[in-house]
């Protein structure tokens, strides 16, 4: 049994009276793809923000590769080997695609060999024809790929993807799924937030379900879709059981 790459214990966050994340614990093993799902407002993105230090934790501990990273600051995540993407595509609008990716190579290697690393990352997501364009000139699907290229450029060991499929067409989702599988083959561990189970079924090894900030279920995707509690969270109670 492999050691856990990431260990999350009793992670909690409240926003005033609202408990956004309530004692969530889970483990991520090296090389896995974890799906993090749940209805709107379940606390998925908040978990990412807590893990990467964009929000401070009220309670809990995070251990990555044996190091306690509970008090990590956002800019330190890259040098640790963690990178997160954002729900909405994010980019540097005044910089070319090449520059957008290049700036992400500085964190870990200190800028050594950054041109080669940049080219490699751009090629992996298939954006080599757009290197000199600006993000404003790219369609949405390409911006999602730019997000991934930037992620790759940081040489992550753990990649946190926040809704990589949002706003993509069926064929674009297929293409991106292949890229994600490719990443796993390269030894990158992934945690992927998605609303829709169907997209995750193809590649997730394990799925964690959040609801109202609490961990509702965890397990193989096949088992998760049959789980009564999960179905209830998404669709409501079954009529025949409700009575």
């Amino acid at each position: 049994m492999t050691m856990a790459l990431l260990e999350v214990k009793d992670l909690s966050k409240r926003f005033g009276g609202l408990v956004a994340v309530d004692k969530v614990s889970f483990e991520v093993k090296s090389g896995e793809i974890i799906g993090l799902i749940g209805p709107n407002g379940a606390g998925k993105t908040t978990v990412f923000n807590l893990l990467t230090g964009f929000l401070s934790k009220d309670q809990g501990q995070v251990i990555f590769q044996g190091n306690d990273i509970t008090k990590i600051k956002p800019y330190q995540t890259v040098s640790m080997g963690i990178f997160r993407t954002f729900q909405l595509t994010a980019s540097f609008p005044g910089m070319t695609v090449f520059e957008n990716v290049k700036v992400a190579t500085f964190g870990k290697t200190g800028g050594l060999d950054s041109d080669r690393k940049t080219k490699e990352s751009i090629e992996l997501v298939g954006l080599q024809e757009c290197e000199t364009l600006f993000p404003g000139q790219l369609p949405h699907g390409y911006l999602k790929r730019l997000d991934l290229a930037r992620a790759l450029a940081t040489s992550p060991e753990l990649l946190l993807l926040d809704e990589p499929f949002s706003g993509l067409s069926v064929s674009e989702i297929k293409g991106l799924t292949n890229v994600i599988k490719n990443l796993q083959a390269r030894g990158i561990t992934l945690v992927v937030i998605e609303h829709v189970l169907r997209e995750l079924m193809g590649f997730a090894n394990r799925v964690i379900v959040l609801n109202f900030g609490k961990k509702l279920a965890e397990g193989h995707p096949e088992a998760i879709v049959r789980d009564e509690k999960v179905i209830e969270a998404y669709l409501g109670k079954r009529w025949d059981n409700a009575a």
Partner: protein
Amino acid sequence: MILAKLRLILRDSPIFFLILLGVFISVPFWAPNLWFIRIFIIGNLFAVFALSWNLLVGYTGQISFGHAFFFGGGAYASVLLNKYLAISPPLAIFLAGLMCGISGFLLGYPCLRVRGVYLALMTWAFPLIFIGIVMYYGGVFGREMGISGYQGLSSSYTINYYASFVLLALVMFLTIAIVNSRLGLIIRSIRDNEILAESVGIHVSRYKVMIFALSGLIAGVAGAFYAHFLKSITPELLAVDMSILVIIMVIIGGLGSTFGPVFGAFMVTFLNNYLLYISELRMMIYALVLIAVLFLRPQGLLPWSPPIRFRSVK
């Protein structure tokens, strides 16, 4: 067509820049009178001032509405060092620059807490503090009468010109070197999207403070030089007008470009001179020019500026 071609010639041709360089180097030889050299000296110094503001705002995206703090502060520091401690003007200018750099570093910290409009308001307040000190401690700072009776850098306009030109060349070289380096990419990424910059591993606050210090240092040197050239200073160097003037120079020339601010600074300096007799209307005319530029050509008047839509407008 012709315009597009001209634009390319202007942008790519080394000949154009060599001619421009030649014109600048030979100013003392072809200038019809001393007044003309004087305009060019002030132009050089304003250009340095504009480049310092542009480094902070155009490249790093940290809005400053109070850059007169550094320009005027450098002027006062250098003059006082010379007058009371008898430090020679070149060393005094250098030390004044250093002091402004340190002030920039210290002021950078409270600035980390605020963004956008609030940052603009906070920086706007900095020179007001300095004016308060100047007015209260009149014995040293001379109140609204200012300070005079200190040494100039040199009585020769030619020497002053070349010294200011070398300063401008150095600062331009520094700007170009920064923009084309790793640091340039990093500060532009902070300008474009701070949160994303943070998440790709950039220690945003460290770089912001660093640029605040560097920008303060450059503006301080320009102000100190300016003071030793004019041989008398008044609190007007710290006034809101001064902070606005540098903004106008950079916007007219092109925010976030290297040659734009220099071009804008010379335009304003020349206008300043030719509008001398209607000085009451000067600021109004600049304001109208500013509005016109923002409306019709927000990327600045330089012919090779790229359209603004590919730059940060956040």
